[in-house]
Structures are given as C-alpha cells and as structure tokens.
C-alpha cells in the first residue's frame, strides 16, 4: 500500500487577480504514489503547488477534484486515521506564545490521544538539541530553535509518514545537519518522508525519488539517480568580467560572474569557449564538472516553460 497517494488531484482558487469570478488552478490533475519507507522530494519553483499539495494531504485544504490518502486512509472520509498517520512540519514559523516547549509538546501529544509521552518527548528534545530549552517559553526562542520545536511537535505521536514543508528555509548549518541526521534515522527505521525544499543539494543528497512540479503539474518524476543520468552529463563553468551577449546568456545559468553551460561533449565545450572569445571576453577559472540536481531542475523547468493558467469560470 502507498504511504501517500494522490489520485488526479486538482485544486482551484478564486483568482486574486484577473477578472471577477475567474479561478486560479493551483493543482492540475496531480497523480503520485509514494511508497512506504521512501525518502521523497517534491521540488518546484515558488507557486508551483507544493504547499497546496501538502495542505490537501494534511487536511488544511480540500481538493476541488480527486482523492488523497495516507496509508490507505482517505484524508477527508477517514481524516482522523489519516492525520494520526501524518506528522507535518509547517512551512511558516508558528508557535503558541502561552506555553513552554515541553508544555507545547505535551499538549500536542494530548491532541493525538497519546498519554504519558515524556520519554519520547525527552528523546525528541535530545535529538533536536532542545533539552536545555525544554522549560523556556516559546517566545524566548530564536527562529532556529522555534523551527526545531515545530519538528518535534510534528513527531510527538510517532507518525509513520513525515512531511516537511521547506524545513530548512532560513536555518543555520548546524540545525540542518542535526535535522537531517535525525530525519534520516527515522527514515532508516521505516518512516516515510516527504520533503519540499529549495535547497537542491539537500534533495539530491537525501531523496531517493523526486517529483518536480510546475504550474500545478508534475513535469518530472523519477529516481534521483535516473534524473541525474538523463541530464546533460557535464557542465562547463567559468568566470567572466563583463556581460555575455544575449544569444549566449540565454543558454547559460549565470550567478554574478559565474557562468555555467550544459555540455555533452568536448566539441560543445570548444564551441562555447570560442563564442566567448569572439565576444571579446576572457573566460577565467575554467572547469568542467558533473551535472547536479540544480542543472536537471533548471533544464526541466525550461522545457516546461509556460504561463500559469488563468481560467475563466
């Protein structure tokens, strides 16, 4: 049985822009099965529909069409069982200012009907480096610490399926490492993990399988290793001091002075370098590296470039 199953799920909202009565299609017939024990990555640019998918999965939002289930429990018809199976770390840094860390975790346990949960709460605090903050009020914690508490809150009821919605946005290196070690451990012990992130190197390192979402549609879905294989195998990387001619710049991934071109073979590399020379520029620090997930991601997104739909109602 699939840990998470989306069946032809669509979601439309009343459009905030555009003519009155028009709707915005946030998800457009998404189907996806995530098996038990997978570490699955959901990638896509802002507004692609990642959070909408997670909201529907978590019961915060309802699909306009289609069905979603967690371990076979429909998220609407059998919501109690579905939510018991899910641990969701929300994207927003939210907290209840009335309570201490330990109180918040005890209360969250209680909502799920978990009694005498202090042993597991202690283990969560320990694993997430929160032990010395256990009795601190939520208001006194730094952003990173609040993020850790969010993770702990999602896990109080030992959910078999863990969902992390951009858990490392604005988080320091130390927490990222602590967090990923802990989540990887839970995954090894059998938990299914669904992750959305903008840090593609994290997704590449952690996720066994990846779906890429664009404008509410899945545009790529495969094992991470297959996605990497399918991409242009190499990337030519160098620095230039001035701007590239437009024709050339359109093919490149440019970060400040750093220019990167997808390249399949030596001939292509020579052609790019020749074009740079003809433009009167000097390529410095030239190197050739293997394509990473970011290259694949950009490639997939470019291939599927189209405007998000505004549909008249």
């Amino acid at each position, binding site marked *: 049985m699939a840990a998470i199953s989306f069946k032809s799920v669509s979601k439309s909202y009343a459009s905030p822009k555009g003519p009155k009565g028009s709707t915005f299609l946030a998800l457009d017939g998404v189907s996806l099965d995530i098996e038990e024990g997978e570490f699955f990555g959901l990638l896509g640019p802002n507004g692609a529909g990642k959070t909408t998918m997670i909201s529907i999965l*978590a*019961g915060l939002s*309802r699909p306009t069409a289609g069905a979603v289930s967690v371990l076979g429990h429909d998220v609407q018809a059998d919501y109690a069982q579905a939510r018991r199976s899910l641990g969701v770390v929300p994207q927003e840094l*939210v907290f209840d200012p009335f309570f201490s860390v330990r109180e918040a975790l005890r209360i*969250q346990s209680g909502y799920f009907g978990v009694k005498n949960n202090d042993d597991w709460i202690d283990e969560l605090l320990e694993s997430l480096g929160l032990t010395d903050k256990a009795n601190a009020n939520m208001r006194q914690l730094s952003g990173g610490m609040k993020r850790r508490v969010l993770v702990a809150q999602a896990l109080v009821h030992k959910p078999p399926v863990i969902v992390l919605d951009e858990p490392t946005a604005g988080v320091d290196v130390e927490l990222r490492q602590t967090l990923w070690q802990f989540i990887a451990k839970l995954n090894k012990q059998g938990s299914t993990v669904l992750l959305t992130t903008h840090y593609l190197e994290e997704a590449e390192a952690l996720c066994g399988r990846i779906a890429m979402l664009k404008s509410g549609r899945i545009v790529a879905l495969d094992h991470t290793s297959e996605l990497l294989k399918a991409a242009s195998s190499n990337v030519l990387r160098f620095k230039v001091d001035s701007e590239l001619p437009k024709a050339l710049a359109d093919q490149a991934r440019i970060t400040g002075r750093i220019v990167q071109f997808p390249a399949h073979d030596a001939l292509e590399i020579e052609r790019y370098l020749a074009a740079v020379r003809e433009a009167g520029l000097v390529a410095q620090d030239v190197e050739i590296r293997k394509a990473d997930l970011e290259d694949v991601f950009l490639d997939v997104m470019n291939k599927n470039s189209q405007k998000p739909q505004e549909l008249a109602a």
Partner: protein
Amino acid sequence: MNGWQTLLYKEVLRFWKVAFQTVAGPVLTAMLYLLIFGHALESHVKVYDQISYTAFLVPGLAMMSLLQNAFANSSSSLIMSKMMGNLVFLLLTPLSYMNWFVAYVGAAVTRGLVVGVGVFAVSALFTDLSFVAPWWILTFAVMGAALMGTLGLIAGLWAEKFDQLAAFQNFVVMPMTFLSGVFYSIHSLPPVWQKVSHLNPFFYMIDGFRFGFFGQSDVSPWLSFSVVGGVLAVVSAIAIHLLRTGYKLRT
C-alpha cells in the same frame, strides 16, 4: 487525557496563565461599577420591595462579567490562533468538530464561572448576598456562559482581524448586556422599552439568574429558561455547522 480534554485543558491554561488580565481585571471592573453605581443610586432607586439597590446590582454585574468573559475567551483565543498561525497545530490533529466545540465552549464556561464567582466573592465584602434558589443560579450561569462562549466561537471563526471582533463586542455584546436590565428592573421602564427588552435574549439570562437570588424576577424563570435554552440551541447548531464545514478554517 484524550484529545478534547487536552484542548479544554489547554484553553483553560491559556487564560489561567494570564489570570491577572482575564480574571482579576474583570472582577475589578465589576467592583468599580458596584461601588460607584451603588453609592450614587442606593437611595434613589427602589427595585422590587425590601431589596437594596446594591444587593440588586450584584447578580446583574456578576452575570454581565460572566457573559462578557465567556465571549472573550473563545473569541480571542480563536482570533489569536488564527492571526499567529498556530491554529495549524490543531487543524493537523484528528480532533473532530464536536471535540472543538465542546473544548472551546467548555473553556469559555469555565472562565465565565471563575469570573462570576470572583465578582461574588469580592461583593460579599460590601453587601449581604442571598441565594434563594441555587439551582436556578447555577443553571443560568452555565447556560449563559455556554451561549456566550458559543457566540464567541462563531465570532472568532468569522473575524479575520481584531477590529472586526472588537466591533462585534462593542456593537452587539456590550449594548445587549447593558440594555438587558443589569442596572435596573425593566418594570421601571416605559411600556415600549419593556417590550423591546423582552426581545433581548440577554434580558432572560440576567432575569432568570436574578430569580435564583431573590425568588423574584420580571418574568417567570421557566420562561427565561426556555428562551435561553432555545437561543443556546440555535447558536450551538450554527457554531457546530461552521466547525463541521471548516468555515474559514479549511480552504
């Protein structure tokens, strides 16, 4: 504790942690009303026979504080959770809509009763209190608090900003409580205003409650019981419907 008990506990803990503001404050306000109006009107206003104005005022003030605080508890808790976004912790749980209803209204009733008892405890220092029919007192206290807690739940679900909630409080709750006969017996009003007062459900809460203290009231306690019970049933049905359909909670 199971799910709804935990939510009830959390909601009670939420106001109890700031009891200075949520309990002591309202009790102090009620005492100021009692001292000032009691002092100013004691010799001028006669209510029923034999009952001093201050003694008449105490149950009304207690009920008014109870009602306002029951409303404030569920409404402010919900709007704050919505504004701060921490309502998501609750939305992610398997709690049913009936669990939500019982817990939010239960906590509102608790806060209302705590404030009401506080008002009596302090009033006892200034005037003699009588309790002719304690069961009526308890019945109207619980029903009134539940009604207002439910109304607060509806307002808290509906409001998206604090000022919308403040408008509800200032333009609906306050006028209806003040015009319900807290400070006067409606028999002292001109006939037209007596009729108008009879359309105000708050009047029946306070009148029935007062019957429990003096064995006298403007209308029969059974009529008050029926009206308050009927209104409670209606607002409960609305609140439960909103929770069940996820009104402004689940998009």
